[in-house]
Every structure is written in C-alpha cells, then in structure tokens.
C-alpha cells in the first residue's frame, strides 16, 4: 500500500488533475441522475400536493402529462360530486399555454380550479388566490425571472391577466404552474363546465379502493388511484428522458475509467524499473496487481468523494441561476455512483496491470 501511495503521490499536480478528471465524470453522472429525479418530481408536484386520493379521468386517459384532448362533461362532474362515499370532489381544468414573456417563450400549465373545492396553490408566498376571472397566481420563480410582482399583468391567449399572488414550489422546466379560476380556463379552452380530471377525497369510512369500485360504472371515465396517475406521468417522462440520460451517463462513466487508466498507466510505466526489481526479487504478479489496483482505488475514491461534492455544488449553482430546474440528488444515486467509481477504478487498472504482468525483470535491468 505504501508503494502504491508513494507512486501515486509522487507528482502531486498529476494526482490532482486525475482526481479532478474522475470527479468531473462522477459529477456528470450524479448531476444527470439528479436532474432526472428533479424532472420526475416536478412532473407530479401538482398531483402530489392536490387534494384527494382518487382521480377520475376521461375514458382512456391515464396521465396528466400530455393534454388528452378530452374533457369530462359538467354532468360527470356533478355525478361524481354527489356519489356515495365522496367527501370532496375537486374538478380541475388544466391546459398548456406558451406566452411570450420578454421575448422568450415560456411553457406554462394553466390550472383552472374552484377555490371552494380546492386544487389551487398550496404554498402561497405572497398575495391571495384568484377571486375573479382574469386573476392568476403566478409561480414565484417565473415572476422573479420576468420581474412580475403582485398587481402586474400579462397576456395569455388574448386574455389580459392580473397577478394577485405568488406561489412557491410550482416551478418546472416543462411547464410552470399558473393558477386561475376554473371558469376563466373554461372560457379560454371553450369548454364550459368541463374538467380535465376530478380529484376525489373519500368520505370517512370509505377506502380509496371502495370509492374506485363505486365510480367505475360512470360512463366515459377512467377511475384510478391518484398515485397511479402520478406513476403514469413519471413513466411518460422516463420514456422521453431515460434513453438520452443513460447514454450520457455511460459516456461519462467511460471517461472516468479512461482518466483512471491514463493516470495509473503513466504512474506504472514511470516506475517500470522498481516493478522490475520487485519481480526480480521474487514478487509475484498478484502483489504488483494489488499495488496497481490500490493506486486506482485511491485515485477513484478521492475523485468520487470530490465528484459528489462537485455534483451538490453544481446542483446548487444550477438551481440558484435557473430555479425552474430541480436537481434532486438521491441516496440511491450516490450509492450507484460509488459503485460506478469502484468499477471505474477496476476498469482503469486493467491496462496498467497488463503492463506490469508483461514486465520481464532481466529486460528492465538490461535497459
């Protein structure tokens, strides 16, 4: 181990560069996984905070991620509200809109709700909920980016809207939440009295499963657990993101392994003489492999530890500069990255180990 360490630390700048290289690769892996987890969380933040445990969706609709092009009729809303076992029914009419704010297109999800039934902002930072059509609660981050404050106004689909409140936890890269009265969204979508979905809270003594069984006979609907809709929303996001993210994680992993390989290979080749002497005095290849692997493990360990720190710093930096991005570094991702770092070290040690194994002691002395 001493030989491994002295070999590795012989050139401190080289060691530092190698550790930074590994750390950046690790940071990239962890950051990408954090970004993915953040996108997943943002995708369900509304349903996670909205009331109810059961979701009544239009027939064939299983998620809220994409607009379904279908609405629940006013009669369905009334029927669900008065169904046995229902404590509260929260009809929501949601639609995507792309207003242009300060010359930049901004994706927003306009959530139409009735304050009497809930489904509005759950963490109001400032101001109040919309009392009239044409009033909205804007996400705090979106408002900050465009210099909006309570009392300011902007336009969506030809309608002038006044900001009456600012909400927390509602920013998202793929569609920041903006809350308006349901009647206003109905007028924009030309869908009077209709709803995109109804969130239902079971009455005391009624389980969600019993409620679903009771509501399933409603024509033109698809009744699911709210948690199932959230899972479906995340699966749709996964279908878009995962292939790209995992290809990039794989590339970052190979870069990390190459950095380990480059450093340990150079350190090994520079010390060929010493390794030759060790072989000449009877050291087996196993001993030399241990030296090489120890160096790789030390470089990878320090790099991984630094990389985790870098990932948290990068996450903080990105979320400070662009709060619409949530970077959620989860413990499972860290464990995965630690394992990746270990495999990187082993993969990186392969070439140097071969170089050591191929050493002919006599030849080393002859040179």
């Amino acid at each position, binding site marked *: 181990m001493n030989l491994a360490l002295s070999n590795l630390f012989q*050139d401190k*700048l*080289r060691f530092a*560069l*190698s550790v*930074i*290289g590994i750390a*950046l690769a690790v940071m*990239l892996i962890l*950051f990408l996984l954090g970004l993915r987890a953040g996108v997943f969380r943002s995708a369900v933040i509304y349903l996670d905070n909205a009331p109810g445990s059961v979701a009544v969706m239009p*027939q*064939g609709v*299983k*998620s809220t991620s*994409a*607009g*379904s*092009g*279908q*609405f629940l*009729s006013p009669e369905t809303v009334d029927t669900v509200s008065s169904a046995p076992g229902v404590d509260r029914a929260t009809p929501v009419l949601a*639609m995507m*809109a*792309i207003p242009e704010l300060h010359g*930049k*297109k*901004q*994706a927003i999800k306009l959530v139409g709700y009735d304050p009497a039934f809930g489904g509005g902002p759950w963490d109001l930072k400032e101001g109040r909920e919309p009392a009239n059509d044409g009033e909205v609660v804007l996400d705090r981050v979106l408002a900050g980016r465009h210099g909006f404050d309570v009392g300011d106004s902007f336009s*969506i*689909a*030809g309608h002038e809207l006044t900001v009456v409140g600012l909400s927390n936890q509602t920013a998202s*890269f793929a569609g920041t939440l903006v809350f308006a009265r349901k009647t206003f969204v109905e007028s*924009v*979508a*030309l*869908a*009077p009295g209709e709803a995109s979905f109804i969130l239902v809270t079971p009455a005391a003594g009624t389980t969600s499963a019993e409620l679903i069984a009771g509501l399933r006979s409603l024509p*033109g609907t698809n009744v699911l657990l709210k948690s199932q809709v959230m899972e*479906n929303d995340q*699966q*749709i996001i996964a*279908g*878009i993101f995962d*292939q*790209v993210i995992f*290809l*990039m994680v794989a*590339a970052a992993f190979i*870069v990390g392994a*190459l*950095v380990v*390989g*480059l450093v340990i*290979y*150079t350190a090994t080749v*520079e010390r060929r003489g010493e390794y030759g002497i060790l072989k000449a005095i009877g050291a087996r290849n196993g001993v030399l492999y241990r030296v090489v692997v120890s160096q790789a493990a030390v470089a990878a360990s320090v790099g991984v530890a630094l990389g985790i720190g870098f990932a948290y710093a990068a996450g903080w930096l*990105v979320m400070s500069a662009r709060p*619409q*991005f949530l970077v959620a570094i989860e413990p499972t991702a860290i464990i995965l990255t630690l394992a990746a770092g270990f495999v990187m070290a082993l993969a990186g040690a392969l*070439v140097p180990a071969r170089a050591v194994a191929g050493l002919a002691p006599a030849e080393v002395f002859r040179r």
Partner: protein
Amino acid sequence: MFRLAIANLVQNKTRLLISVGGVALALTLVLFFRAVFDGAEGRLTVYIDRAGADVWVSQEGVRTMHMSESALPASVAEEVRAVPGVEEAVPILYTEGMIEANGSDYIVYLFGVPVGAPLGGPSLVSESAPEPQSGQIVIDHAVASEAGLGLGDQVTALGQQLTIAGLTSGTSSLVSSVSFVSMEDFAAVRGGGDVVSFVLVKIEQGESPAAISSRIAETVPGVTVQTSPEFASQERKLVKDMSADIITIMNTAGYLTGLAVVALTIYIATVGRRREYGVLKAMGVRNSRLYWIVLVQALLTVGIGLLAGLGLTLLLSAVIPSFNELIVLSVSMNSLVRVTAVSAIIACISALLPARQLAGLEPVAIIRRG
C-alpha cells in the same frame, strides 16, 4: 519543432489512445446531446411543413402548436373562407395526447382532419389508406414498428379503440410523433361544443401569403394569423427557448470534463519528457519554443479527439435509429463549428499548466538527475 511535438505525443501510443479516447468521449457528450435536440427540432415542424397550408389561423395569442392548445369556434372556418383571396379553409382538431399501442404509451400530436380535406391530412403514407375514416387511425411507422403493430391492428387513442388504417413516416422523434384520426371521431370525444383548433388556409394563385394573412387578421376577430414559415419559425423558437438552458448546462459539464482530460494528458506528456525539454533548454532553445511544442501537442490531442468524437456521434446517429426509430439524431454544422471553437480554447487552456513547469526547468539539474 512541429515534428518534435508529434514525436513526443505519439511516442507512447497507449497513453495517446487513452487520452484521445477521453477527449473524444467528453466531446461526444456535447455533440450527442446537441444532436438529440437538433434531431427533435428537425421533426418538430414536419406537420406544418407537409400540411400544404399557406396560412395558419389559431386562437388569439396562440402562436405555436407544441405544448399549446388552441380553441376556435367552428364558425371561424366559414369566416376565413369568405375572405377574398382564400381558396380553401380547412378546420382541424389537434391535441398533444397519448396512444396506447400493444401495452405501451406513446406521446403523439393527434390531428382530426375532415374526410376528403384538401389540406392537413396525412402525407408520405407509407402503406395503405390515404386518410383515416371513422374508427380508424393513421400512425407513424416508427411507433408501429416499436410496438410490433401493423395495418389492421388496434390502438387506443382518445379513449377509443381504433384500427390502424395507414402508416406515415418521418414524423417521429424522441418526444412524439404525428397521428391522424377522422375529425368526426375527434369531435365526438372532445366535448365542449362546436370547436376547432386551427384553420388551415390555401390561398388563390397569385396572392401572397403575407397579404392574405393580414387580410384575415383584419376581418376575423379573436384569431392569430401566421404564414406557414412564420408558424414553423415560432415552433423552432419555442424549442430553442425551452432547451437553451439545459443545453448550456450539459455543454458546460461536457466541456469541463474534456478540459480536465486534455489538461491531464498534456501535463503527463510534458512532465514525462522533462529530460528532453531540459536538453533542449541546455541547447539554447527558448521557453517560447517549448510552449509552442506543448500547444501543438494539446491542439493535436484535442483535434484527434474531436474527429473521433464526431465519428462516434455520427456512428451513434446511424446505429441508434436502427434499434429505436423514435430517436433521431442530427449533427448540424453550427454545432460542429461551436464544439471545434470551444475545443481549441480547451487545448490552449490545457497547455498552460505544463508551460509553467517548462518555464521552471533548470537544464543542468535535470540532466544531472537523469
């Protein structure tokens, strides 16, 4: 000196291979991510480009199709048709929805087009029916292939079981694809009364799209009117505005990793050749000449890495669609120029560290140390 730089670099081929590989992969990260976005952007306007409309009419304030919803009273189509210079005005329904095919869900831009409409219907139908009748759907070939379905099979869209009557091609991307149902089926499940999403306009021969566009905007209230190129340009701007931040983040991560790999490589190559540099210094070679050698090595490493990275990205662009037709990668000249410029900067920065080492070299001491 140039020869010396090359000889120094290629002397240890394993080291060169590892370092070029590292740079190549780091730059591949940047090129690949950009290629995914460029590929998706190229497909984003495919419906607009192929619909055959000169002018698009949407709800007031709605300038895009992607992630947008437009609702117009159906009577708007008649009002538009009555505008002088308009040859055809076709109302369509549109939503960004899901289709369930063989147990998997796919995001689609779903269009409801009147049967027999001269505009807006499916184009490049690779098989069978030219347009969907009631109870039928036309989906993209890539989605059908991914789901293992073909003509006559069933999918679920708009909550209805629909039969695949035709396949389009070239409309799929990582995010979505284009599907068509009959306007009648779409309207029946949408609810909300007599509503359309857009009105597609074909202008009379000799008229200019811009002039007709202005004329419709002046005549029909509550609408936004754009020429087809304007509409497509708004779509591209949406993707650009939405993806700019994430692309910057990914590029920074890729470039930083590349920088670390190149800096490490050049540093190792230079320090490993200390003795030769010491000899050169003892022979009277100036520091500036030595810096030049290091810089050439850095530029060569990055240059070869960039070529390898580009080759790898092009290879991925060719190979990935054969496994998954939904992913379309496109390496643009713009992206290539940008990555080349940043790579050159990376090479120059990487050459700085060893330059300090060279400046501090004491020729005699080095040679004595052997």
